[in-house]
């Protein structure tokens, strides 16, 4: 496997247990509330298959589990399959780390890449992760995930077309 270097890191703190945060990351009943209606499919083991699916069944992201250590660390390879033109993007690695922090937990998400990825392409994750994790934090703390409208940034789409 090529070397993947962290390019985007987002940290938040959530008043919840590590187990609840883990469950929120790995079960569809929760992901579809804060991750723009996506269902998650994940085989709970190293090397297991991973996918995010849209409500109509279309696979949005596909990958493999490369770290599975509940409720501490989850790492998956991340190949975007939809929208179709995003398939040109080399796969990246997304890692979630959960650590106790006082009466809360620290959740860190790291997006790592194996190539010299331009900022324009990183802008997708840099706008998406804060929204997803803000919504997840609200969901776990208040029971409701606010809808945060999000589309791939124009600069990202243009950069993908240039690949």
């Amino acid at each position, binding site marked *: 496997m090529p070397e993947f270097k962290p390019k985007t890191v987002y940290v938040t*703190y959530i008043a919840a247990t590590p187990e609840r945060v883990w469950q929120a990351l790995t079960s569809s009943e929760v992901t579809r509330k804060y991750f723009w209606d996506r269902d998650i499919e994940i085989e709970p083991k190293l090397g297991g298959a991973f996918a995010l699916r849209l409500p109509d069944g279309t696979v949005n992201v596909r990958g493999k589990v490369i770290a599975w250590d509940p409720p501490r660390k989850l790492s998956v390879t991340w190949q975007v399959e939809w929208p179709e033109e995003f398939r040109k993007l080399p796969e990246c690695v997304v890692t979630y780390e959960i650590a106790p922090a*006082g009466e809360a937990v620290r959740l860190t998400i790291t997006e790592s890449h194996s190539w010299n990825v331009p900022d324009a392409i990183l802008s997708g994750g840099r706008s998406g992760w*804060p929204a997803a994790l803000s919504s997840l*934090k609200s969901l776990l*703390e208040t029971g409701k995930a606010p*809808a945060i409208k999000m589309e791939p940034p124009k600069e990202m789409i243009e950069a993908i077309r240039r690949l």
Partner: protein
Amino acid sequence: MAKPSFIYVTYIKTTPEKLWMALTDPALMKQYWFGMHQRAEWKAGAPWQLVFPDGRIADTGEVVEVDPPKRLVIKWRNEWKPELKAEGYSRCTMEIIQAGEIVRLTIIHEIDKPDSKLIEAVSGGWPKVLASLKSLLETGAALSGIDQLGKA
């Protein structure tokens, strides 16, 4: 080489006015900023301080821009760690944008100093403070026990 900067975005279920109040009212700040607060008259050119719970001064500077409830810019220098103070003034911009039923808060903290230790320090602090602020506005209770601010 781009200027060292820390950018953090969070979405909060509140109004721009309530968020503005939370960013500028010392009593509210003390709840989510682990006992710390900013001391300032909120007008451009006024002196600004960030104060530890025990009254010691953590940082000093100046209010640069005030546009409630949208934008606040602060000139910001550390006062309690000599190696950070030596880096001089940083600039912290807070922007509030209504986004549907939710409010987006962006913090941009930047300095014209390569390999800045101040930016490294605030990169660890802001996510704690802003997560705690979000909890306070959405649930009525800030986060507790997660801070190591000012304890180095």
